[in-house]
C-alpha cells in the first residue's frame, strides 16, 4: 500500500471531521444524513431495545431503627432501555456513536410535593454514551491508528474478571452486566506493522469513577467495617463505639462526600501495551499510571447530635443522641505492571482419550504499586451531656499518628482461566480469581493484610465489661495509651480473596436455547479473631469454605431462547449465599434476585 499525498491527507482529515459533524447531527442540511456532495460517507446503524424486570426475594435491610436502610423483597429493577449505534465511514476515517437511554419505570428521588410536576424526577431515566469517537487508520504513516473520544479499552484476556482492565472504570451498577466497563474520553494510538505485533499508547485526560451497585449504600450503615490497617486502632475504635453506644450514643454515618481528582495535567492517566503472538500464545505486557476507580476514605469528621430519640414502633427503645460522622472519600493513585497471555495448553485428558483437544487458557496478572493513604479523624466538641467525658474539638487523640487505610506495599491480582468444549452442546469455563474487582491492597499469602467484615466489643468474656470501660475512660479522659486487644472481636478476610468461578453452557434446540450455570465460590472463608484468656493473646479461628460461618457463594442460572430475527428472551436468578459478613451474603451485594429480560436487536 503506498502512502497518499499530503494534499490528499489534508482533504481526508477534513472529511473525517465532517464524519463527526454528521454523527452529531449538524450536517450541512441540518439533518442527519448524507448530502450528495459527500455520498462516499457510508452510514450504518444498529441498536437494541431491552426490558429488564428483576425481583428481590429476600429482605436485606440493614441498620438499627434510627438508621435503617430498607431493601425489602419486591421489584429491584424495571429498566426499559433503547440503544442506538451509528457508524459513519469515509475512506480511512470512522466516527462511532452509541447512546443508551433507559427509563427506570419509577421516580428515583421523589421526596417532596413540588417535585410532582418535574418530569425528570417522576420519570426516572438515564442516558449513557457507550461510544463517541473518531478513528483514523494509517494516520501519518502506515500501521498507525488513532482513536479519539469516548471509548472503552479492554486489554484484559480473562472472562468478566479482568484485573488489568484498569483504563476504564467498572460498571458494577448492574450485576447482570458484570465485567462491563464505562466509556471515557481518551486518546488511543496503536501501531501494528504486521498482524502479530501491536504497540499501543493511551492517554486519559479526565478520571472517571466506577458505578457502584444500587445496594452499595447499605454497606455504609455497617460502620463496624473499619478500614484501618493497624489493628490496635481498630480495637480501640470498636471499644469506644461500644462504650458510647452503651452510654446511649450511637455512631451513625451521616454523609459520604466523594472528592474526584482535579482536571489537571498531573491527574491524567497513561497506559502502554506491547502485544505479540508467539506460536499459539497471545502475549502482552502493559503498564498504567492512574487511579483506582473505587474510593477510599481519607477524612472523617464526627460531631454530636444530643437530641434524644425513641423508636416510634417500640417507645421503650431510646437513645440519648447520635455521633454523626461525615466521611470524605477519594480515589488513590497507583501504577500497575500487567501481563496477559492466552492460547492453548496440554490437556491431561489427552493421555487417556485420543480425541481430546488442548485446553484453552487465559492468564491475566496485574502487579499494583499503590499510594499510601491515611485517614484524618477530626471531631467537633463531643459533649455527651455528662454520660461520658466531653472531648474537645480537634483531631482524634491517636496513639501513633493518623492511621493508614492503604499502605504502599505492592500487591498482585490475577485470573487464571481454563476452558474446554466437550461437545457442541457443552462448554465449561473455570477460573481462579485472586482479588475481586472491589478488592485492593496487600493482603494474601504473600503479605498479611486484612479487611474487617464485622467487629465490635467482645462480650464473650465477662471480665471485659468493667476493664474495657475503664480503659476507654483512662485513654480519653486521662490521655494514657491503653491496650484494647482484649476487648474487641473481629471477623476478618484477607484483603485479596481467592475465588473459584465455574461457568457451564448447555446449548440445545439447535443452539437456539442456552442454559448457562455460573458459580462463584469464596475459597478462603473468614477468620474470627478475639483475645484468648487461656493463651493470653489474640487467637484467630479459621472458618473455611465448608463451614456455615465461612461459606459464601453465588449461583447464577440463566436460560435464554433466541427466537431469531433479533429477539431473545431470558430468565434466571442470582442467588447469593453466606452470612451477612461474607463476601456474597453482604447486603451491599444485593441479595437474591429473579430476573427476566427481553431483548430485540435491530
Amino acid at each position, binding site marked *: 500500500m503506498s502512502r497518499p499525498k499530503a494534499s490528499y491527507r489534508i482533504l481526508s482529515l477534513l472529511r473525517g471531521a465532517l464524519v463527526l459533524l454528521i454523527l452529531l447531527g449538524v450536517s450541512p442540511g441540518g439533518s442527519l444524513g448524507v448530502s450528495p456532495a459527500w455520498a462516499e460517507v457510508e452510514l450504518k446503524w444498529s441498536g437494541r431495545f431491552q426490558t429488564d424486570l428483576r425481583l428481590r426475594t429476600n429482605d436485606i435491610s440493614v441498620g438499627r431503627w434510627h438508621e435503617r436502610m430498607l431493601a425489602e423483597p419486591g421489584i429491584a429493577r424495571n429498566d426499559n432501555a433503547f440503544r442506538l449505534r451509528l457508524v459513519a465511514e469515509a475512506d480511512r476515517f470512522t466516527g462511532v456513536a452509541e447512546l443508551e437511554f433507559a427509563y427506570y419505570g419509577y421516580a428515583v428521588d421523589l421526596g417532596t410535593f413540588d417535585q410532582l410536576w418535574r418530569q425528570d424526577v417522576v420519570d426516572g431515566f438515564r442516558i449513557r454514551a457507550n461510544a463517541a469517537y473518531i478513528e483514523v487508520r494509517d494516520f501519518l504513516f502506515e500501521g498507525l491508528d488513532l482513536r479519539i473520544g469516548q471509548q472503552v479499552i*479492554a486489554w484484559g484476556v480473562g472472562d468478566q474478571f479482568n484485573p488489568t482492565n484498569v483504563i476504564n472504570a467498572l460498571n458494577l451498577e448492574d450485576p447482570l452486566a458484570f465485567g462491563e466497563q464505562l466509556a471515557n474520553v481518551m486518546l488511543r494510538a496503536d501501531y501494528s506493522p*504486521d*498482524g502479530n505485533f501491536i504497540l499501543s499508547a493511551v492517554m486519559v485526560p479526565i478520571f472517571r469513577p466506577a458505578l457502584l451497585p444500587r445496594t452499595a449504600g447499605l454497606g455504609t450503615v455497617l460502620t463496624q467495617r473499619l478500614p484501618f490497617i493497624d489493628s490496635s486502632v481498630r480495637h480501640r475504635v470498636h471499644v469506644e463505639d461500644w462504650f458510647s453506644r452503651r452510654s446511649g450514643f450511637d455512631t451513625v454515618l451521616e454523609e459520604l462526600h466523594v472528592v474526584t481528582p482535579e482536571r489537571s495535567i498531573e491527574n491524567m492517566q497513561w497506559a502502554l501495551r506491547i502485544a505479540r503472538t508467539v506460536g*499459539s500464545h497471545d502475549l502482552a505486557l502493559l503498564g498504567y499510571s492512574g487511579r483506582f476507580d473505587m474510593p477510599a476514605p481519607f477524612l472523617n469528621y464526627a460531631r454530636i447530635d444530643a437530641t434524644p430519640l425513641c423508636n416510634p414502633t417500640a417507645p421503650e427503645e431510646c437513645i440519648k443522641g447520635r455521633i454523626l460522622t461525615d466521611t470524605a472519600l477519594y480515589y488513590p493513585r497507583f501504577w500497575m505492571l500487567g501481563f496477559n497471555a492466552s492460547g*492453548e495448553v496440554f490437556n491431561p485428558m489427552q493421555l487417556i482419550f485420543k480425541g481430546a*483437544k488442548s485446553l*484453552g487458557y487465559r492468564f491475566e496478572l496485574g502487579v499494583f504499586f499503590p499510594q499510601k493513604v491515611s485517614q484524618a479523624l477530626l471531631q467537633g466538641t463531643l459533649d455527651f451531656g455528662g454520660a461520658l467525658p466531653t472531648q474537645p474539638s480537634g483531631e482524634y487523640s491517636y496513639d501513633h499518628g493518623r492511621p493508614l487505610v492503604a499502605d504502599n506495599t505492592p500487591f498482585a491480582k490475577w485470573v487464571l482461566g481454563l476452558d474446554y*468444549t466437550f461437545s*457442541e452442546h457443552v462448554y465449561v469455563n473455570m477460573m481462579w480469581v485472586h482479588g475481586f474487582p472491589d478488592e485492593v491492597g496487600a493482603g494474601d499469602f504473600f503479605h498479611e493484610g486484612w479487611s474487617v467484615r464485622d467487629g465490635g466489643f467482645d462480650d464473650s468474656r465477662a471480665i471485659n465489661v468493667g476493664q474495657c470501660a475503664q480503659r476507654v475512660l483512662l485513654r480519653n479522659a486521662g490521655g494514657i495509651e491503653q491496650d484494647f486487644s482484649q476487648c474487641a472481636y473481629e471477623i476478618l478476610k484477607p484483603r485479596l480473596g481467592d475465588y473459584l468461578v465455574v461457568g457451564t453452557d448447555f446449548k440445545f434446540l439447535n443452539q437456539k436455547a442456552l442454559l448457562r450455570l455460573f458459580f462463584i465460590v469464596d475459597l478462603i472463608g473468614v477468620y474470627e479473631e478475639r483475645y484468648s484468656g487461656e493463651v493470653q493473646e489474640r487467637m484467630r479461628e479459621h472458618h473455611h469454605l465448608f463451614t456455615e460461618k465461612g461459606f459464601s457463594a453465588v449461583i447464577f442460572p440463566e436460560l435464554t431462547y433466541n427466537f431469531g430475527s433479533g429477539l431473545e428472551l431470558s430468565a434466571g436468578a442470582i442467588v447469593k449465599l453466606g452470612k451477612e459478613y461474607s463476601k456474597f451474603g453482604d447486603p451491599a451485594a444485593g441479595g437474591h434476585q429473579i430476573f427476566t429480560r427481553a431483548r430485540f436487536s435491530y
Partner: protein
Amino acid sequence: MNIKRNMRSSAVVLLLVGFFGAGDAWADKRGEELMACVDKNPARSKDQYFVYDMIIADPGQSKPLVLGMKVWIKDGMRLVHFISPADVKGMKILSRSRAQMYVYLKGYNRIRRITSHMKRQTLFGADYNYDDQMTLRYGDLYLADYTGEEGEIYKLKMKRRPGSDAVYGAIEMKIRKKDCYPLEMRYLDEKGRHLKTETRSSYTCQANNICEPTELKMVSHVRNNHWTKIVRKEWKVNSGLSKRLFTRRALQRN
C-alpha cells in the same frame, strides 16, 4: 488354512507399516498430487471478497434462519464478518492460520482466540463448524488416496495426517477432473461414521480460471439431516485487499 493366510496377510501389513510409517502407508502418489492440485486453487487469486447468505434449516421447521456474512480471503487468511440478523451483526471470525484463529464478540467488545477444542463448535446452529469455515488447504491435515474416477470426476479419500489437528478422521472428496475444484465432500469420524456431506455446486469462473461455487450445502447426518446452505450473493477477485485487514487490531474496528 484361512487362519494361516490371515496371519500371513497381517504380517505383510505390519511389515509395510513398519517400513513406510503408519501415516505414509495410507497415502498414494496420485492422491497426493490431486490433493495438491485442490490446495493450489485458493492461490489462483491474490485476494477474494464474497457476500453470502447462510441459510440454516431444521427439517421439522418451516422458517429457516438466514445469516448474512461478508468474507475476505488473502494469502491463506480469511475474515468472516456477520452482517445480519441484528443479534449476530458485528460478530467476526479471523483466521490468520489454522493455529491462529480469533472470534470477535461484539456484545463483550472482546477478541477470543479459537483454540483446538472450539473448532468443532458450530455457529448459530449451523452445520458448518469453525474448522469447516476456515480450512483452505487440506494437504497439511490429511493424507490422500486416489480411489477412482467417474466421468469428469476424480475420487479421493483423505485420512487425517498423524499429529495433525484436523477435526475429521477422514474426508471422501469428489473433484472436477479439469481443475480440481471440489464438488462433494463426505466427512467421516475416526471410526468411519459418516457425519456430514457437503456439496459445492454451480461454479462460476473469472479470469485465470478462478472459480467458486454459487452454492455450498452441508447436510449433517447426525442431526437428522439438518442442513445449512451458503449462497453467494456477491464476489470480487483481486480487488487489492490489504494484509492489515487480517489482523487482531482490525477485528475491533467497526
